[in-house]
């Protein structure tokens, strides 16, 4: 792996060397490394590009890293990764995609991740997106995530996109069964002429299921963001979504919530707040000796922490 790819890997997966536990590293469309463990198997799909990750029931405290890096300008790929998490597992999955494009052609990665989480299993899923390179070629990323939580299962997803992705459309769908819970925390910062669209659809199918969608974003310069969340309460459940955005310069942010209760005991809440940085916050930090610019950076940094 070359220096650029190593840098991308460090950005998206925090990896500086070969990770512990199971991993699969994909670089410019090719497998660049793989390790399996007694409990976690990784199998290349035969019908299309991608892998199956199979985690044995009862696997606890293990992690799976599946980073993707693209440094070849103009490369466009769609990758299908399926995770099968057995009953009573407690595991961490770290995915992420880094694109370095110094050419003039668009580089595009579409990752389609499906999670089949069995009864009472717990999954922490971390996903980071990062782009670099000074070429005119766009860096495009369209992650699709499909989550199925069986009875009592839980999944916590953290997704972060702070820098360098020109265009992204992230679609997440989930079905949540009895007693299962889903938490999604999204952090996005866009600048320049970037476009970021987020689209969540969650079907609450079982008694006592719960979902919590939290999006924090900062839109600077002429960038555009759209946050869409659809929660369908088909049983007694708790659904909450929250979109909190700071808008700067000439940016634009839309928050489009849609709540549907199909059960009298479905409890659904949406909160959205979009606004510029409060003047009094800037003033407070300026009375502590920061310049207006430094104050702004401090507020944004805290907000996305």
């Amino acid at each position, binding site marked *: 792996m070359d220096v650029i790819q190593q840098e991308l890997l460090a950005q998206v997966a925090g990896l500086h060397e070969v990770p512990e536990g199971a991993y699969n590293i994909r670089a410019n469309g090719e497998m660049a490394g793989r390790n399996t463990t007694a409990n976690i198997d990784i199998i290349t799909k035969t019908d299309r590009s991608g892998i199956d990750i199979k985690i044995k029931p009862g696997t606890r405290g293990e992690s799976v890293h599946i980073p993707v890096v693209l440094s070849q300008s103009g490369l466009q790929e769609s990758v299908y990764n399926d995770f099968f998490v057995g009953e009573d597992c407690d595991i961490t999955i770290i995915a992420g995609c880094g694109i370095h494009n110094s050419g003039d052609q668009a580089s595009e990665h579409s990752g389609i991740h499906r999670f089949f989480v069995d009864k009472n299993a717990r999954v922490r899923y971390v996903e980071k997106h990062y782009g670099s390179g000074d070429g005119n070629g766009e860096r495009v990323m369209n992650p699709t995530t499909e989550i199925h939580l069986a009875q009592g299962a839980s999944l916590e997803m953290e997704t972060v996109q702070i820098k360098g992705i020109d265009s992204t459309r992230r679609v997440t769908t989930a079905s949540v069964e009895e007693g299962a819970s889903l938490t999604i925390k999204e952090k996005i910062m866009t600048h320049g002429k970037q476009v970021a669209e987020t689209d969540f659809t969650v079907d609450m199918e079982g008694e006592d299921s719960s979902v919590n969608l939290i999006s*924090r974003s900062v839109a600077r310069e002429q960038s555009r963001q759209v946050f869409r969340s659809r929660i369908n309460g088909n049983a007694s459940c708790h659904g909450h979504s929250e979109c*909190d955005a700071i808008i700067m310069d000439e940016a634009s942010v839309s928050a489009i919530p849609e709540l549907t209760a199909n059960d009298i005991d479905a409890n659904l809440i949406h909160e959205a707040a979009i606004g510029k940085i*409060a003047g*009094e*916050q800037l*003033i*407070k*930090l*300026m*009375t*502590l*000796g*920061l*310049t*207006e610019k430094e104050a702004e950076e*401090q*507020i944004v*940094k*805290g*907000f*996305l*922490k």
Partner: protein
Amino acid sequence: MLELKNISFQAEDGGKEIEILRNVNLTLEDQFVAVTGPNGSGKSTLAKIVAGILTPTEGQILLDGVDITEKSITERAKLGIGFAFQQPVRFKGITVKDMLSIAAGKETAVSEVCSMLSEVGLCARDYVNREINASLSGGELKRIEIAMLMARKSKVSIFDEPEAGIDLWSFQNLIRVFEKMHEEIRGTILIISHQERILNIADQIVLLADGRIKKVGSREEIMPGLLGAGQPCKTLTDKL
């Protein structure tokens, strides 16, 4: 030493010019000064003008003989003017430790944060990593606001109604904070307050009314008149 020369401030309200401060002249030595007066007398406006948050319509502000009237908020902060807000500001994601570090102008260790917070009656263990957001009560925020100003060690420290909302924490502690700051920094401590107990420890009291200075003097000179002026009417005294 802080000097205000002929400070006036006008604001617009519904297309009408309203005079908030008029010809305020004041010289503040390195001592404990309390500014008091009825609501709407211009006390907070005066404090904001000193901090640079508001620009006076007329007049000059001098810090140690240097004209700072045209200086920005940031420049004044760097020159040694600190300001604790009447209503502290909340920040999502910024922790108590982050804010105290910004205030101190350097990365502060947990032990330092601990000593700063203990001065205002808070235990660092409970607060150091708390975000300065809506999860903190008004009283907690107020104390953190005071701790931030202590951390700055400014030549001129302005507190806008520091006593508001901290009733559960003893008053005596608040007064000790001011005394300690005064001892350590030997600067000017300017406190806007209605509280008799705070006025009682001031070296100098400034009485504002209708945007003008009505009286300036030692507490012995000002206090008796103040208490008399505030006599409630008979309907109220009958009920007391």
